[in-house]
């Protein structure tokens, strides 16, 4: 009886097949290959955590409730720790991965709504599953899947906090794409001994400083001298071509990260220009505006040509100062070093013009030996 039943079934099947009514079509079970498939890793060094960006064109697309699997070859680790937040899934506007614009899908680990995708890792496999009718991927479009810290989109979940770790150095690493959605493909990647090159360099310290004196800029000396000549109570003498009094030129450069300061101190402090023969006689120094007939002596820094440095704040940065100036604001000199030029960053071409000024009153004792000595010190801060 059983034999007869089976025989009948076989006979009917054969009749249907030969008549064309029943066709065992091999096409139904055949997968379609994805194209333009790539996986860009953030690191390809062995045993190193890496992000993955997959791009490929799906000929079939992914329909409601279908799934897609990404199976990492055995060397990769950490896949089982990946959750929905660690993935971004996006569909391209076209089938050209290089130019498509991508629209992110909503991704969760589990419990996807009909418009979301579940994505989770287990073992070596990442499975992407449509939650329903509104969670589909269009046939012929480029699909982008980000896995790792690069999954920054937060639609549904995110950003990513886990990465997949590369395996050892070898030539057998790949990711196989399959699943019920019907497409298949393999993407090979190459894990190498190291993917980084360290570049190192040294910049040695540099510091240069130079003084010159003259009515115009130029190299000279030593010895550096500023000779006021004969002073008059009716006219303030200042550095410059008018009175023929030398300007003090300071030039310097440094690559010190803290820049370079220049200090000044004088031999006589507030006594200013002191008679060598009668030291009690002096042309004093005080911070003040030079005035004809008022005995005073001092320095200021011109803004002309000033480069690299700044005038020292609070002192030389204040007031008027020009070559040949009759009303320059001079600063107090001391026998201890005081900043005259400053910088807080490297200087490649520092330049400053320091103006000397002197005036006497009608009662200033006569002498031919009023003298002072200025000492400039440049210090870099590396």
């Amino acid at each position: 009886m059983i034999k007869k039943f089976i025989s009948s079934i076989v006979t009917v099947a054969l009749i249907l097949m030969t008549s064309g009514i029943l066709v065992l079509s091999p096409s139904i079970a055949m997968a379609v290959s994805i194209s333009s498939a790539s996986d860009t890793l953030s690191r390809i060094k062995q045993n190193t955590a890496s992000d993955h960006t997959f791009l490929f064109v799906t000929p079939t697309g992914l329909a409601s409730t279908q799934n897609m699997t990404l199976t990492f070859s055995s060397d990769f680790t950490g896949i089982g720790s990946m959750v929905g937040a660690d993935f971004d899934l996006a569909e391209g506007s076209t089938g050209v991965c290089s130019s498509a614009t991508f629209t992110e899908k909503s991704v969760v680990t589990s419990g996807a709504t009909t418009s979301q995708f579940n994505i989770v890792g287990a073992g070596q496999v990442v499975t992407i599953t449509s939650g329903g009718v509104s969670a589909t991927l269009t046939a012929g479009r480029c699909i982008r899947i980000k896995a790792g810290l690069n999954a920054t989109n937060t639609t549904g979940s995110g950003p990513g906090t886990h990465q997949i770790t590369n395996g050892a150095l070898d030539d057998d690493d790949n990711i196989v794409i399959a699943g019920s959605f019907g497409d298949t493909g393999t993407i090979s990647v190459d894990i190498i001994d190291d993917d980084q090159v360290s570049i190192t360099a040294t910049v040695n310290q540099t510091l240069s400083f130079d003084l010159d004196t003259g009515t115009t800029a130029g190299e000279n000396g030593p010895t550096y001298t500023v000779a006021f000549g004969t002073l008059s109570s009716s006219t303030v003498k200042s550095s410059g071509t008018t009175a023929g009094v030398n300007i003090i030129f300071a030039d310097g450069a440094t690559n010190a990260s803290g820049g370079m300061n220049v200090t000044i101190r004088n031999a006589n402090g507030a006594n200013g220009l002191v008679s060598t023969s009668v030291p009690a006689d002096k042309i004093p120094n005080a911070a003040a505006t030079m005035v004809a007939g008022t005995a005073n002596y001092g320095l200021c820094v011109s803004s002309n040509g000033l480069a690299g440095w700044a005038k020292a704040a609070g002192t030389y940065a204040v007031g008027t100062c020009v070559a040949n100036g009759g009303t320059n604001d001079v600063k107090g000199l001391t026998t201890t070093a005081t900043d005259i030029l400053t910088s807080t960053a490297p200087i490649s071409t520092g330049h400053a013009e320091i103006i000397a000024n002197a005036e006497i009153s009608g009662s200033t004792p006569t002498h031919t030996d009023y003298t002072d000595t200025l000492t400039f010190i440049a210090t870099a801060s590396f």
Partner: protein
Amino acid sequence: MIKKFISSIVAFGLIMMTSGILVLNPNVAMAATVTTATDTLSRQRASTLSNHEIKFVTPTGMAVSTNMTLVFSAGFTGVGSVVVADVDVAEGSTTSCATSSFTERSMGTGASQFNAAGSSQTVTITAGASATPITAGRCMRIRIGANATDVTGSGPGTIRITNGATGSADTITIAGSFGDAGLILVEIDDGDQVTVTADVSQTLSFDLDVGYTVGENGTPYIVPLGILSAGSVTRSNTSTIKQIFADGGTNASGGMNVTVRNANGNQGLKSTSVGTDYIGSTNGTMAAGTPNYGLCVDSATITGWSRATAYNTTCTVDGATNTIVGLSTTGADILTFATPFSTGHAQIQVNAAISGATPAHTDYADTLTFVATASY
């Protein structure tokens, strides 16, 4: 007596015939048989369009105003659709169909041409009244279908004749007033093609090395630029500053791209101890005294890969005026190629320059990361 005479004549005739002295030759009134006759089909599969190339030696030749008929057996279809453009007629230079060179006849309806037309199962070829005849004893070639590419007079042809089913005796019978006759048997098969398949596994290889000259070396890969000077550009060369060598290959149909990113972006070489001090990285031509740092790809030694568009710049080993590409913390293509290649090689030059104001440090550093991606 008469009976005896007739009997003697019959007896004599029989003796002569059996002895071979007298032969009643039936060929005297019959057509001569073509020889070395072949029909080469472009497809032998049943129910499939096919070209035909028919060759044979014609003992008689084909005089003007005579015709030749090619009768295709019943299985063939489409014969009636053959027009003159679908037929080429050529005469061989010798009697050997294997070695002859062939001279095409002009095909058309003119008196100086050969005409051809299909009707039912027969293709009839007619030599015009002033056409150049086919010489007796020569090999004759007739092409019917898309292989009738000669356009002398008419052409080219399109495939018209379809093979019949399997299992029947398929023939082409040659006859006509030109005087010769023959039969060519052809075989129609259930399938004449074999699909051959093979798999080639994906391959992808990529390797970095650093050195003065090309060669394998181990990790870590470091390019020490040494002490930089405002007076000159420090750059990779063959003796003191290492180059970066990238080698790779893939059979990916979309080729392979290599990207580079750096740790410090446009801040380039950064002091480890004072993070605000750096030698920047920006597109430009290197010049002594102008701080800049970056990479370029030597144009003379690259093989397999192409330089990415941005890196199509002036770049040589030990080039003092290389034009570099500014680095970024996001990967940017440095090497590309859109098709498979087996031996890609590129020499990447590191360039750096400072000004007199570049802060002094012994710990300027940057890290470059190279990533190779194939597109399958």
